């Protein structure tokens, strides 16, 4: 019965092509925007995860500010999203404490200095100037695309390694090795260029593709002694216990801060959890807004179905007079509403696939559409059809056959 109802519904939709199409469009746009946004979020999440995986499972990051709350088992229970952008409260004293901690393979400080990089007439004020040490590429397993990274011997040398975008913005050429540029009147020579980062998971808000990395001590001098530590990356020696190292670091830093935990130590897993949770929150927020358009689409269906029911009153009367039960009339109109929303859903998914294709083509985003998302979208459009189709269908089913027949 449902199958023949569906055929009947498709026929009735075809007979009012424009109207059906426009009604469907509401659902198409709704599903398309929700699916696209969710797959975008999923894509970014996958990029973040990949980046964290690339850095290895035992990289520990220390950041200023209290970013997370933990439950008894040490699992992250709450994230302070505002704190993710927080700086301060991490000093060079802390760096020294960390460096003295036993069983560490490497310690990489990351500090920001103020300044604008210029190259002749080109002024690049959006670039970040970061001081770090020679271990930086090792710590996160980042490849050097051109040239080489500075070494430990270069601590005070005016050398720089640039992010992938900098060659475009500051030099307008590929691999500007040996090219000079100026920061605060000091000439700095480009030593190397980093391979592009998918994203910047290690520090939200810092885009390493738009960063100029310089030796820590040189950078500090360049900034007149002012350097703001926003992250210290630590990797324990092979065989050392990760959790033990973390608790060791936590204890030492806390005692240096007078017992306050105004810093955060995160393992690779924690970082991944934060990235994942953050993306989920963001995606559901924007996806939720997009879902409103689906709601509007649903109201469109309801509206058009109400019109259809009153237009087809006579048909309902005829059908009832030949023995259709209320339930059979209800099914007929409900299936019609569901057909609109379901076909709209399918078109929306196809539209979203096309949109994702062009997003990959034209932007650096890599939206990931999974079968799960598609299935969820279908179920969602089905639910919209049922929810907004029920009222008109009930109205149709309850029509009085004699009255309906009279409306010929």
């Amino acid at each position, binding site marked *: 019965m449902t199958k023949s109802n569906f055929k009947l519904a498709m026929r009735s939709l075809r007979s009012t092509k424009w109207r059906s199409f426009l009604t469907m469009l509401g659902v198409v746009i709704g599903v398309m925007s929700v699916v696209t946004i969710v797959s975008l979020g999923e894509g970014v999440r996958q990029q973040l995860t990949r980046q964290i995986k690339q850095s290895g499972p035992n990289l520990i990051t220390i950041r200023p500010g209290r970013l997370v709350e933990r439950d008894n088992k040490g699992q992250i229970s709450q994230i302070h999203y505002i704190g993710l952008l927080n700086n301060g409260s991490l000093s060079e004293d802390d760096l020294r404490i960390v460096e003295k901690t036993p069983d560490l393979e490497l310690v990489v400080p990351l500090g920001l200095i103020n300044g604008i990089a210029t190259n002749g007439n080109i002024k690049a004020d959006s670039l970040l100037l970061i001081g770090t040490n020679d271990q930086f590429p090792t710590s996160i397993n980042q490849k050097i695309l051109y040239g080489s990274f500075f070494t430990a011997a270069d601590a005070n040398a005016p050398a720089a390694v640039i992010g992938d975008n900098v060659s475009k913005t500051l030099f307008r050429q590929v691999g500007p090795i040996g090219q000079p540029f100026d920061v605060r009147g000091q000439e700095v020579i480009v030593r190397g260029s980093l391979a592009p980062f998918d994203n910047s998971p290690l520090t939200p808000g810092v885009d390493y593709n738009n960063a100029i990395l310089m030796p820590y001590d040189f950078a500090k001098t360049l900034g007149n002694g002012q350097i703001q530590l926003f992250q210290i990356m630590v990797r324990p020696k092979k065989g050392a216990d990760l959790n033990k190292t973390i608790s060791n670091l936590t204890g030492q830093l806390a005692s240096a801060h007078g017992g306050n935990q105004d810093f955060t130590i995160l393992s690779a897993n924690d970082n991944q959890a934060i990235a994942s949770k953050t993306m989920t929150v963001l995606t559901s927020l924007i996806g939720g807004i997009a879902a409103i358009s689906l709601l509007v689409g649903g109201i469109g269906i309801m509206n058009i179905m109400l019109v259809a029911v009153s237009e087809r009153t006579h048909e309902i009367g*005829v*059908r009832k007079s030949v023995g259709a*039960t209320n339930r059979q009339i209800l099914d007929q109109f409900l299936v019609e509403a569901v057909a609109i929303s379901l076909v709209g859903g399918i078109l929306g998914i196809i539209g979203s696939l096309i949109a994702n294709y062009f997003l990959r083509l034209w932007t650096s985003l890599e939206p990931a559409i999974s079968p799960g998302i598609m299935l969820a979208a279908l179920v969602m459009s089905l639910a919209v059809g049922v929810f907004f189709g029920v009222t008109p269908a009930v109205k149709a089913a309850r029509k009085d056959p004699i009255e309906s027949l009279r409306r010929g």
Partner: protein
Amino acid sequence: MPVIELSDVSKLYGFGNATTVALDEVNLVIEPGEFMAIMGPSGSGKSTLLNVIGLLDRPTHGDYKLGERYAARLRPNQRAVLRRDSIGFVFQSFNLLPKLSVLENVALPLAYKGMSQTKRLKIAGNVLERVGLSDREYFLPHQLSGGQAQRVAIARALVNEPSVIIADEPTGNLDSGSSRLVMELLSDIHKSGSTVLMVTHNPELTRYANRVVFMHDGSIISDEISAIGEVPRRARKTLYSIPKKTLQDDAAGVSALMGAIPEKPFKKVSKPKTTKSKRKKSYKASSRTSKK
């Protein structure tokens, strides 16, 4: 055993002063195989009677027995199922669904029975052959003449092999030639053993019936058995007491209706209940003008 048994069936519309009596304690017994014509002026309750018998409407009071089922107090869905299985409707305005082909229109009642598509189209094809429209199976209703459309409607009414065929002025929209064809078809159906109820304004058509009932103000005022091929006495009076325009007009049932109103109502066929008659008269007087 009668196929239809109405006892004291009343149908009232409205409340209080505005109450309209569409059916006034009608008693009617119809045996299987009867061809009953129902006549009467507009607003006399003929259509309401057919709607009640056809289970489209439920009586306000009284009992209605269709075959062995007590049908007056059924719930809407039970009524729908009973209607589907035992009643076939033929309307004045055909009431075919415009977007379905002739074959699909005929098969419609079977679809609500849950029959598979191939099976129901096959049965519908057979019934269409019976009404002589096999070559019109894939036409749409608007491509048919009025007579053909009505024959399709009759095929649709027949397709479920109902125990009662209800025809509400089946020739009202047809010319005389088509009228004759349709009436011959109904007569054939009657001859093959079906029970047919027909409302008509045309006394000529009572020739096809073996029983003629007159209604007035919701009551049956005359109930005659007559041989097929004869216009019964009362109908003949209707027939000859009005000025006719042309024979064609009359045969198509266009005019010939106002003469059916008797000067003085005949004695009721239903047992009049003396205790209630006074009360009835009071609201009947007020309702006569307000009825459709």
